């Protein structure tokens, strides 16, 4: 569980992110509903659809661990209070030694 999970308003665009249970790799829910390790393919959700997507993710414990909302813009760029952390998590250099 991350230290900070800001509450997001229903109308705020958001993505659903989690960790793959088997590998621990960071994953994002795509617009099509599949999990991807490529943050550039994340889906942007709002309102009731976002809540439904997160609820569904929470029922996929064998696939993903600890799903949560992450704030993004309408076009899918990371934004909001956790921008630094989420940007690090989504870094394309993921896997490379820093």
């Amino acid at each position, binding site marked *: 569980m991350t230290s900070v999970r800001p509450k997001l308003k229903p109308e705020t665009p958001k993505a659903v992110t989690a960790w793959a249970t088997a590998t621990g790799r960071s994953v994002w829910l795509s617009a099509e509903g599949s999990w991807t390790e490529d943050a550039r393919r994340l889906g942007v959700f709002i309102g009731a659809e976002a809540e439904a997507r997160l609820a569904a993710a929470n029922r996929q414990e064998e696939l993903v661990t600890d799903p949560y909302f992450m704030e993004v813009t309408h076009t899918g760029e990371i934004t909001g*209070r956790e921008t*630094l952390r989420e940007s690090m998590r989504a870094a394309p250099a993921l*896997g490379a*030694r*820093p």
Partner: protein
Amino acid sequence: MYRYDQFDAQIVRERVAQFRGQVTRRLSGELLEDEFKPLRLQNGVYLQLHAYMLRIAIPYGQLSPRQLRRLAEIARDYDKGYGHFTTRQNIQFNWVALKDIPDVLEKLAEVEMHAIQTSGNCIRNTTTDHYAGAAQDEVLDPRAWCEIIRQWSTFHPEFAFLPRKFKIAVTAAEHDRAAIRVHDVGLHIRRQGGETGFEVHVGGGQGRTPHIAALVNPFVPEARILDYLEAIMRVYNRYGRRDNKYKARIKILVSELGEAEYIRQVEEEFAAQRPDEKIDLPAEEIARIHAYFAPPPLGAKPEVSNRFEAAKAADPVFARWARVNLHPHKTPGYASVTVSLKPLGVAPGDATDTQMEVVADLAEKYGYGDIRVSHAQNLILPHIALDDLPAVHAALDAAGLGAANESRITDMIVCPGLDFCNLANARSIPVALEVQKLFADPAYEEDIGKLHINVSGCINACGHHHVGHIGILGVDRKGEEFYQILLGGRADEKAALGEIVGPGLKADDVPGAIHRVVEFYRARRTSPAEKFIDTLERLGHQPFQEALYAAG
């Protein structure tokens, strides 16, 4: 070194089998994360920013070549080809898949290793002086007592669910290289009238509420030390706060009760132990454990090695490494070698699989099969003949391990920070590497002398920023990384907590600020023999603070 008996082997083997079943149930969805989390933490498995992290115990930092080769194999086969040595003298792998961890633990068990006591609210890996058994200034080898504490604390039923994690460090040397005064319990082995005993310090720690430990007993005879530790733990277990994890460490209990009242309660508990509660630790048992740590069969050598002296005269790079990275050995003709894991441009404390194998080979060929991990995140070859140092250095240098910077400014303690850690607020590694660049000239760095910079990416202080001569603490200010600078910390026998000197700096401004402080020191020191920390203590923090914030 200690070898597993049948009980050690059995409990480790059974633990692996138990965890394999738990992982299988987690992967099938039978166990939910909330149920699985405490189980994985008891086996050293964290879920970090990008992946699972597996922390493996290296009891009191000692490794055999066989064990280090096995760690290299795990790095290669299950991680990304490297591992990260930690300030608890352990190693962690940052990219291991959960589905593979039971296999990894099984491979570790084959070489008498495990991940027990590397996480959770239990007594963690006991740490000690990385020169133990070789240091000139120790009264005895403290590893035997670390092993006794390990056996006492492993799966101790009364202390498996403490209010919070609990860290013990032991030293037997006058110069404290184990940072005992910033541990929950710090033990200093003393000799008094021919008797061995322990000076006991309690309630030190770092994190968001740093404390220097209180001296609670100047001498507990060795036969009574486990009983005394039980008394310390019982008072903590009973009265330590469980309502607030940030106030749950023993340092808060000692602070809230006051030292005198805490000591009174420990002494009362100690005196009240019934005979059947006491841990009978006969002298023969103490001697039996000590026998595992018998000195290696170091052959007699002349105090001066012609080969070593000739190599120094012929090669200035080797000569500098010999001046900086060697520590005097208690046996003439030998030295303890620091294998620096802080070459320029590499995450501090990281070693590749190949590098681990090189060190294992050198330990086997030249070092009596003994390898240590220091809490400063380096490796140590404690027993190397002076004659063999040129060959050892050449092999290390060829493997990228020849940096001559032990206890120097580029030999920083650095936590993984926001590059890896789920709790971090800011990155630690990049800012450390930027500072390193300014001191990359080995001659300049050697002239600066001993200077510890410690870097943490959040208030939890895994990078020990409170006790760096210069501490750097990363904070997140509205999505931007800032770094607070602390001055005056130290982790040795004169332990002190650093003070934040003023407003935080942007990452780009940190290296220049550090450079100005160092140049101020060089200009004001009485001679090159006066260390940074001594000049700082002589002049006070104010002028250094002014130098730090002077326009760059």
